[in-house]
């Protein structure tokens, strides 16, 4: 598998199962953690935009503060698509609370 933690994109070779997973090819420890998580509970961060009422900025870019389960990305998108921003927000402000265990936060200042 390819590590997606950073642009290095280390090619990882994973052998073994359960408690005994061996990871080869990672330039740093993050790659080993990534491979183990990927086999047990793959997580992804998600970025998107939320509709706003402001004509000068019809979309506010947002992201998940933490990561959400990989399998819930499309479900999270449904929640994000329903939201509407009605006040001026700035980078880091919470836009939607508690989406699959994390918050959706603004990544730009309006």
């Amino acid at each position, binding site marked *: 598998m*390819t590590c997606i933690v950073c*642009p290095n994109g280390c090619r990882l070779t994973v052998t073994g199962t359960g408690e005994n997973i061996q990871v080869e090819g990672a330039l740093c420890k993050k790659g080993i953690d990534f491979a183990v998580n990927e086999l047990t509970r793959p997580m992804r961060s998600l970025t998107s935009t939320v509709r706003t009422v402001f004509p000068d900025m019809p979309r506010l870019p947002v992201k998940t503060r933490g990561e959400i389960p990989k399998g819930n990305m499309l479900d999270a998108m449904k929640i994000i698509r329903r939201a509407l921003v009605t006040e001026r927000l700035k980078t880091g402000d919470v836009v939607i609370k508690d989406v699959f265990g994390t918050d959706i936060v603004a*990544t730009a200042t309006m």
Partner: protein
Amino acid sequence: MTIRESSFDVVVLGGGPAGLAAAIAADKKGASVLLVEREKKLGGILKQCIHDGFGLVYFKERLTGPEYAQRFIDEFFSRNIAYRTQAFAVETARGAQGFSLLLQSAQGMERILSKTVVLACGCREKTSRQVFIHGDRPAGIFTAGTAQYYVNIMGCLPTKRCVILGSGDIGMIMARRLTLEGAQVEGVYEIKNSPAGLARNVSQCLEDFNIPLHLSSTVTKVTGVKRVESVEICAVDENFAPVEGTQRTVPCDALILSVGLLPENEVAEALGVEIDPATKGAVVDQTLMTSVPGVFSCGNALHVNDLVDYVTISGELAGACAAAYTGHARSQVCVRYDSSDFLYAVPQRYDTAAGGPFDLYFRVREECRNKRVAVEAPGLVKKTRKYLRLTPSEMEVLRIDPGEGIIDGDIRLSMLDAT
């Protein structure tokens, strides 16, 4: 009619990551700075790059494009640096005392005199006019960056079912983005036998969403009257020539192009700056000064970088060097390499009068394994580094430090098998 006139030490053209970094660095050195941006807001293309992965080199953090830009925008404003937005340099000329620029903006015309100019105009996407495809030219053919603008800035979905030509990073990122927004991406087609973008994007943008990546294949024909109705896909041989009998018609309403980026050099050319045919950007020395004294180039206008972090770093260097510019006589040597091994190297020159250490950026021509890259020059202790894997899509950097020595001859970049 009289035109407003003002003077600066440094004028920065472009308010994206390179221009912001250059303006901040020049201001830190005590220069009077003016930044010129054609759009309403600062931040450049980062405004629409809502995905994350920016800043890992520079901030050791994973940021989205708008977050990365905001850090520099905040610092820029906190320094009260002069700027003009929605402004365009319609005329840039060399004068006796530096440079004379004519700016056009909503406030009218304005004459700017400056000792130095920093070109931070970024790059442009190659369009359908620069790619050879037969057939009709209906609506529905656009670049990945245009699709990104529609989706992320305007909030419009420009396709229901599309084909993406080219596996550049923006193309793969848009494949994911369009899929998340409910469009169907039929496939990503790459004429070469390896992906053009980063491996992590093949994984997290395509494989995560089961979007097929077809290597060694391309779009040979577009069909449609008002709007794209279908495209013809064809396999190609090792010379990129379509293989007869492999044609396949794919119904779709859009063809999205992610076929490469070209440095923007309109102003550079107007100033008579020498362009490197390998990078398509300016030829510069280690201070990022071009062939025209007092004109500096940085960021994606200089060469297309794969990470914004390096764009920022080059902007800082260009801004600081522009602020320190004294007009000294230059004594340049060349950086030489074998073009069968390397696509390009930046800087292309080294000013022995300015001296000092520098970062040498390079890209290899083809993917290769177990190589040793060497840099040697008279007056420089030979520098070598071993690479397990080198690929054209990943820029490499070597720190070259002559220390107490003085480089007094051409610098040679070479590649050997590692043993």
